[in-house]
């Protein structure tokens, strides 16, 4: 058994929240550079260049890349030989979110109830998913998920007969429906299989794979590349002004499913794809 105190978790989450919003990850910056090489549209190129400048300015001034600093989605991989001391894991994470958003001058964007819409004032609570895994480490992965793109995320229960062609059509349909509203160039997380909720969670988790890295499953890797090519033929382009760069990447995760089902969840993520992780 290894003890990890909740104060270490709070400190880690606080730092992840601030860093994610101020410092866009290198995989995203590289995606801008790659797209600047291939984009044919002058307006699209200009948008990409401004977004690159935006990342530099956010870093330099330690202000958020995007004013929508998101709702925090937190995936925790909790080693089964870890003993958390000093309080509750969920409270420690939310305390870190509250401190990070308050002290980091990040926007409070969470309503305490879907109906009364009163702002909680410090961006808590986070959406937290915990997986128990072998080992004595605690891995914390956070994404600060913007609302504009999240609002364009979609789910469809396909049938086994729809198969791979059905999945392709649905994912591309989602890109079309997202359009400029979701701030392209997009990153798509696609969860296929499992049950209704499992596919949705997979679609979020898929977004943590570094952009530009291959899917470890060669068949899925081929599918991802085909889908990305199709998405970038739609002409939507950066900000929807027209162009070749509609999506930076499409990441797929799968899980076994019932013989009747083919669930497909698509999380739409914008170019402000802010993700960070740490292992304690």
């Amino acid at each position, binding site marked *: 058994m290894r003890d990890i105190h909740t104060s270490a978790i709070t400190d880690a989450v606080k730092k992840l929240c601030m860093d994610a919003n101020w410092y866009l990850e290198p995989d995203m910056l590289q995606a801008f550079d790659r797209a600047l090489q291939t984009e044919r549209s002058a307006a699209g190129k200009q948008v990409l260049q401004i977004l690159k400048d935006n990342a530099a300015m956010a870093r330099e001034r330690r*202000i958020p*890349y995007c004013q*929508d600093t998101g709702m925090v989605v937190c995936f925790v991989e909790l080693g089964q030989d870890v003993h958390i001391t000093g309080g509750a894991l969920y409270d420690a994470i939310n305390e870190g979110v509250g401190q990070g958003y308050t002290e980091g001058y990040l926007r409070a964007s969470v309503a305490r109830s879907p109906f009364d819409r009163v*702002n909680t004032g410090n961006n808590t609570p986070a959406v937290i998913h915990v997986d128990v895994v072998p080992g004595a480490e605690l891995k914390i992965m956070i994404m600060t998920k913007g609302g504009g793109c999240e609002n364009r995320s979609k789910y469809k229960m396909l049938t086994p007969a729809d198969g791979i062609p059905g999945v392709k059509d649905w994912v591309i349909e989602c890109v079309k429906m997202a359009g*400029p*509203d*979701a701030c392209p160039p997009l990153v798509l997380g696609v969860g296929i299989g499992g049950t209704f909720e499992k596919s949705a969670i997979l679609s979020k988790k898929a977004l943590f794979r570094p952009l530009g890295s291959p899917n470890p499953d060669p068949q899925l890797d081929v599918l991802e590349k085909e889908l990305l090519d199709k998405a970038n033929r739609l002409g939507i382009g950066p900000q929807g002004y*027209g162009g070749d760069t509609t999506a930076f990447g499409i990441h797929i995760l799968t899980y076994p499913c019932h013989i009747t089902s083919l669930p497909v969840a698509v999380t739409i993520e914008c170019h402000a794809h802010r993700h960070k992780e740490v292992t304690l």
Partner: protein
Amino acid sequence: MSVTTASDGIKDIHTPLTDADAASLKAGDRVRITGVIYTARDAAHGRLFPLIEKGEKLPIDVRGQIIYYTGPSPARPGEVVGSIGPTTASRMDTYTPALLKLGLKGTIAKGYRSQAVKDALKQHKAVYFGSIGGAGAVLSRFVKKLEVVAYEDLGTEAIRRLEVEGFPAIVLNDCHGGDLYQDGQKAYAREDP
């Protein structure tokens, strides 16, 4: 006229705008906006709308003005504002025609508008501008002054009066039926191999 074309081809706009100013702008025009603009998004619109329905006075006079759909992040000490990019326009579509009818001349945001909003732009001679979604750090440089003028309890969603200088935007929908999204996307769509 509050709209003039600069030597770099970009149109300089000084608020407030007249019908003739709005009519002179075409989809695809790049613009720089200088003067006063107001911020309002979901929650503020939710409070303005019942006032409009009851014919009551609004906390801001929208005639000739531009509303920017944004909820900025907090300013660091000594700074005017944090990050201040646009939010998705479609959530305000329900409210926009009523504001245009009152004389609002422009909105700034990102994303598609409904047919009802596009029709109202034509009918009331107004413009829908786009600023770059997610470029909030860059856009903050163009905001010289910020003051909350209504609904302070709404936090980031309060109505703010901004003084902007050369705020960069592009005309997405004009009052002649022009639509940058449609034209731009058509030009780059390619068939599958």
